[in-house]
């Protein structure tokens, strides 16, 4: 499966080839991803859709380096992920991938500013707090820097999470149901932020969502069913 020609002028940002993933052990072992091949071009926005249990989140985890595939090849930002150990994967994520979760996953004991600074501090950036402050200002939270997650609304927490994902300027941004825990209007604001940031920075974006309207805002949608790609469709283009 090839990326859209609009994004294929350079090497793909994400190249998956015959990716396999099973979870659990013994009788409880479940075959989740069954030979997934997918290329995503640099700067492309892709929406992963499909019914519950189809393997969307698992595919997202594999391409974000959160889960190791059992088989096949996973090349992300020019890096072959197969064979990397947990710590190498952590460093890889810190450098190349920004992640936005449905449940925000902010660290409750840290302020908004500190939460955003964490990946920069982990990367050893001397300007971690300046950058974090700028990112929070970008998402409209310049006045809530010293608030703890429990003092923020759901929408504000997700903005902090978006700022945290964007702060290290990752080449790849992944989001797992980023609006799933938010009301419709707040969800829309968050998506505006994500798409604007992606466009501004030229990052590759992969979003898992049940929301077809949201998926349609991407350059391409990839539909999964039972661990396989059922359909890959360019928005306003051909179905693959």
């Amino acid at each position, binding site marked *: 499966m090839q990326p859209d020609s609009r994004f294929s002028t350079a*090497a*793909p940002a994400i*190249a998956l080839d015959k990716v396999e993933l099973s*979870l659990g052990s013994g009788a409880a072992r479940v075959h989740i991803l069954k030979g997934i091949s997918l290329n995503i071009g640099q700067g492309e926005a892709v929406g992963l859709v499909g019914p519950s249990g189809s393997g969307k*989140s698992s595919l997202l*985890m594999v391409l974000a380096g*959160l*889960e190791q595939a059992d088989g096949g090849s996973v*090349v992300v*930002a*020019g*890096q*072959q992920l197969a*064979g*990397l150990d*947990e*710590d*190498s994967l*952590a*460093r*890889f*994520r*810190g*450098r*190349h991938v920004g*992640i936005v*979760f449905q*449940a925000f*996953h*902010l*660290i*409750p*004991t*840290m302020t908004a500013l*500190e939460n955003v600074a*964490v*990946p920069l*501090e*982990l*990367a*050893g*950036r*001397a*300007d971690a707090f300046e*950058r974090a402050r700028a990112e929070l200002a970008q998402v409209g939270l310049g006045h809530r820097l010293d608030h703890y997650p429990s003092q923020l609304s759901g929408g504000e927490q997700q903005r902090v999470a978006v700022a*945290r994902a964007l702060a*290290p*300027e*990752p*080449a790849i941004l992944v989001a*797992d149901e980023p609006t799933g825990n938010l009301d419709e209007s707040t969800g829309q604001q968050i998506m505006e932020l994500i798409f604007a940031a992606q466009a501004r920075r030229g990052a590759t974006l992969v979003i898992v969502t049940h929301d077809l309207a949201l998926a349609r805002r991407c350059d391409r949608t990839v539909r999964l069913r039972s661990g396989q790609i059922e359909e890959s469709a360019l928005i306003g283009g051909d179905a693959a």
Partner: protein
Amino acid sequence: MSVTTSDDAPAAARAPETGRGGFSLSLALRFALRELRGGLRGFGVFLACLALGVAAIAGVGSFSRALTDGLERQGTTLLGGDAAFTLVQRPATPEEMQLFTAAGRVSIIATLRAMARTGEGAGLNSTLAEVKAVDGAYPLTGTLTLDPPAPPAQALAETDGRFGAVLDPVLAERLGLKIGDDLQLGAARLRVTGLISNEPDLLATGLGFGPRLMVSLAALNASELIQPGSLARWHYRVQLNDPGSLSTFLDEVKAKAPQAGFEVRTRDAAAPRLEDNVRRFTQYLTLVGLTALLVGGVGVANAVKSHLDAKRGVIATFKSLGAPGRMIFAIYVLEVVLIALIGLLIGLIAGTALPFALDAAFGHLLPIAIESSVQPAALALAFGYGILIALAFALWPLGLAHDVPVSALFREWDDNGPRRPRKIYIALTALAILALCALAVAASEERRIAIYYLLASAGVLITLRLVATGIMAIARRLPRPRSTGARLALANIHRPAALTPTVVLSLGLGLTLLVTLSLIDRSLTRELTARLPDQAPSFFFLDIQSTDTQQFSDFLAKEASGGKIEVVPMLRGRLINLGDRPVEQITPPPEFAWVLSSDRGVTYSAELPEGSTLAEGRWWPAGYSGKPLVSLEKEIADAFGLRVGDSVTVNVLGRPITAEIANLRKVEWERLAINFVMVFSPNTFRGAPHTSLATLAFPQGVDEATERGISRAVARSYPGITAVRVKEALAEIGALVANLLLAIRGASLVTLVASVLVLAGALAAGQHHRVYDAVILKTLGATRPRLLLAYVLEYAALGLATALVAVLAGTVAAYAVVVGVMKIGFAFSLPAALGAVGVALLLTVAFGLIGTWWALGQKPARILRSL
């Protein structure tokens, strides 16, 4: 497309990096401090366990140091001078006196055991007293406080043909005496002029079996108790003109009176045996405190595990943002260490305060003024134990945090995480345990005891863990009961995350210690009282003059019909050389130090004494008249590496006597018959003045009234002979031992409190599971009584199983101590065992139900909404 196969892919253009691959200790510390903003919730038991154990160890150590510091700083007062020289059975010669008087002021004191008497005829009353006769210079240092107040010389002076005497109030009470009453000591008539409130040199003179009776040397002379060979000790206290010349002075005495056989003490070690005992006792109490910390360690592990379980999401978030596993480990190990430091600080403050508090509350009861102060060494030891226990129990669960999968963010429960940490963390845990063992051994007075303790603790911990696994395995395989309550109880015992291991470990350790101490107590008490052998004597009679021996035997035979009388000659002697080695150059094994530390009773005999069997060598022939021979007790000979054919030198009556070891004997000490470590061939002491020692036994038994009658008859007819009633003496020893055991058992309560804390913490941590179960079951129609029954059954089964293991392990440990170390008979105590079972049931059921009770009373809808 360019693909790299390592993680050195070019990063996006960015500001200069300062870290190394996402890990730096200062960054980990920063994150740990931020994490701590969440407060110490969930660490209550962790803090309490560490604080309690550390406070116990720091408190015991600080108090002991305050006591020994007091002994050291008040050495001159306690000793009654800068140096004290003691001789047995003879006073110093004029030449020896000359050595003392040339160096400074001298005070002469004689001590002996004797009978103090009052009344005449049928009204005669007598009791054993520790007599102390002093000269006019006494006390050289410190103050003898009397009631009513009077200078010693005045109180002890002779007026109207009666010598003044001052008494321990206990002696006055035993003989019904008050100020102005008369009493008799040997041939001397005394009048009570005061009661002793404080005797400054009591600790240096030593505590005896009887209460103190203090008289002047003139009164002692008049008593006629000092006869050739009498068992009196002569003490010469010297207050130096130049206190700085102590070592020169000691060297001079040694050089000019090499054969004197002095037992020498100096102000630097005024009461060395007391100091030794304080140190030994401190070690036992420290080990009890360490047990409390070990129990607390289970609480530490539980708290850390619960904390990390709660932080799974945060850990996974850190990892998703690029934190490697070792950064996660560093963050949480630092967090745990910081929290541990708070617990340790609380413990150290409480431990430091303990001696001050004890001094304020009970200082007036102590024989010396203690010097309470901050004791850095004791605090450092307690800190060392505390931090190592925290690390030993926390490193394993902390190591598991390294590999918490990031997928924990997407799946509520991910069981793909490892059950055992990486090798490095296992090695670190092992290192912490090794350091803990090394510290326990290095810091102990008796390393052998520390090693036994560590082995026993490891054995008990491993056994309890195996037992917990066993209980769960059995519960899993048991047929399912038909009753829902019983089925639920059984399932709760073996389900994943069951409370079984925690309850068995924490409560089991505390209970095992309690059972061990109870059974040691029971065995000791029985040894000292109930288990007196039939052939044990009722009386020991001391100071029987050789000229009176036959007459006294006849007298006893008449007064105590049916009694068995044994009479042996008795001298006192100090060992000077073992083989060619002077005893000063020998470091004895701790349990045999007493052999060399002071003078010992020696005797001679033509035949092998009763109660002894020949182990090696041959007994000397009748009428033997060759070079002096000696028979040694085998265990002691083995301890010092002495063999048949070696020689020993003993100073008796100021004369060194060298004898060849002719044989080794095994002695049945527990029979309490007369027996000696050293028995010489009769020709060794031919012509030497000495007294005899007699025993009177009643193989058919005897009542108290008869014993008292014999006491009175002896006091009347032989006022110079000292009668010691064995039952009274054993009762005195029993009371002392009971007090020591009470102190140890009191300290062991700290361990039980730690057990309770851990238990309560574990039950509280598992509480939300219980509430969930209870509410779901109620929703499905379970009634409260049925649920209550299920929980009672579960907690009772756990408590019972734990108690049974504790009784078994405690019995084995007590048996090892009683039979292996104390070498006395073992006695099992059913009340102690039942007590342990009762405590276990009470604690598990009560603590278990406290939380569940609340859930049982709630309406399901309300709880379901909040779940």
